């Protein structure tokens, strides 16, 4: 029996093309991936992301415990601050990529839907020495993302916190349409915007309010299809594609989320060793000469030498080019390197380009 978010019936009624995603029946698109993608880049898109796992940590050892689990510095978080980090195993392999939020009485850990049960089990395995309470809020709370240049102005009338005054990667408890929730200036699209958590009971009313009020501004309901094309343009990794248990955060190019000197954590020793002796593999961006899409698994060549594999690829609606992310041999990873990609038996020309593929022009911080 697939899991349903609180807005599932709305998605079905509005022609959402529903697919199974990590056990959840989720909309891939309502109209077209490209139309929804453009709405996010030019106006606003509303995403149901209630499938993401939301875990609440409280108790005297919550910070210490999270610092054990996560590669980034949790103790150093200021009130309301949010950090990206990884959960790694003893070998430094990535179990998940997460966001850690610090609030006054608790921390929130947002994990991938596909990894929620694995991370819950990992927590159970490591919590014995800590005085910590872990609550899974995934079923009782709804979560949506409102993303795009018009997102904050559309959200602002519905919350009692000043969104424009909130820095990027900061969150706060807020009254959302009269109900207590959490609002954060975060997202997974490369666009400005916010993510909001509210009790499931008010989810549909809030969703419909935003759809109705946003229509004139060009807001569209947006599915997982454009969530993928948007994050790919922004070069954000996706678990199961760029990240898995055989890849470590340093090789994945995520050193900014790893604080080797701040504290100890599970996997730290392995990562210290990898840092001293880096793996001969790099995550790179590829831009293809033609329009064909280099999809996950496609082999990358330099001449006749096999140098790596594509992890994600799409046709970028913003750049109007076929783009991909890949792991390739470190000696072939310099920007400008000419390579070919085997797409269904045909060698297509491509070159290594700088990441991200897309960066919004005005980064508001």
């Amino acid at each position: 029996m697939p899991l349903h978010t609180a807005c599932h019936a709305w998605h079905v009624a509005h022609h959402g093309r529903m697919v199974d995603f990590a056990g959840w029946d989720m909309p891939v698109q309502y109209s077209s991936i490209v139309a929804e993608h453009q709405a996010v880049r030019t106006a606003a898109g509303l995403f149901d992301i209630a499938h993401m796992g939301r875990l609440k940590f409280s108790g005297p050892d919550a910070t210490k415990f999270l610092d054990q689990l996560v590669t980034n510095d949790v103790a150093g978080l200021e009130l309301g601050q949010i950090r990206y980090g990884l959960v790694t195993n003893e070998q430094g392999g990535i179990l998940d990529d997460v966001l850690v939020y610090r609030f006054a009485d608790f921390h929130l850990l947002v994990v991938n839907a596909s990894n929620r049960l694995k991370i819950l089990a990992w927590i159970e395995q490591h919590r014995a020495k800590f005085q910590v309470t872990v609550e899974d809020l995934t079923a009782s709370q709804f979560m949506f993302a409102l993303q795009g240049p018009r997102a904050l102005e559309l959200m602002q009338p519905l919350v009692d916190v000043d969104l424009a005054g909130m820095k990027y990667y900061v969150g706060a408890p807020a009254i959302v349409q009269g109900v207590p929730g959490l609002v954060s200036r975060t997202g997974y699209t490369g666009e400005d915007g916010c993510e909001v958590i509210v009790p499931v009971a008010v989810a549909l009313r809030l969703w419909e309010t935003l759809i109705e009020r946003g229509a004139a501004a060009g807001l569209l309901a947006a599915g997982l299809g454009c969530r993928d094309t948007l994050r790919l343009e922004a070069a954000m990794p996706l678990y199961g594609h760029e990240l898995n248990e055989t890849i470590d955060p340093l090789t994945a190019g995520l050193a900014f989320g790893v604080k080797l000197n701040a504290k100890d954590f599970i996997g730290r020793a392995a990562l210290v060793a990898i840092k001293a002796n880096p793996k001969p593999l790099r995550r790179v961006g590829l831009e293809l000469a033609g329009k064909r899409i280099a999809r996950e698994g496609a082999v990358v060549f330099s001449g006749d030498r096999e140098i790596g594999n594509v992890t994600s690829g799409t046709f970028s609606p913003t750049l109007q080019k076929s783009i991909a992310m890949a792991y390739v041999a470190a000696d072939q990873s310099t920007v400008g390197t000419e390579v070919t990609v085997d797409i269904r038996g045909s060698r297509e020309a491509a070159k290594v380009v700088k990441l991200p593929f897309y960066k919004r022009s005005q980064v508001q911080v």
Partner: protein
Amino acid sequence: MDPHSLKYAGTDEWVSLDGEIATIGISDFAIQALTDLVFIELPGAGKKLEAGKPFGVVESVKAASDMYSPVSGEVVESNVRIVDDLGVLSTDPFGDGWLLKVKVAAGKLPDGLMDRAAYEKHWAAREH
């Protein structure tokens, strides 16, 4: 062309025969399901096709799909215009969005193709 006068393959290609020349395209249902087309590859004139075998690829943001020839014969013309304007496939899949004209060796369509009513049932029975 009138979609009701065409024959359809189970793999979503349509075909119409005029004398010994068959015109081949992709069904409206398939185009709608693909959405967000980015690329199409068609064989050039002179290429020999075999019924039921792939003749080209159509790619959308979501997936790459092979297209299968409903007939055996030789390509006499491919619609180069759509390669640079895939939008025509969505707006006029049975007219300007045709893909190939093929000289059919047998001079008739093979057995096993569906009429519109049968194809609509076939489509509805599949999961999309």
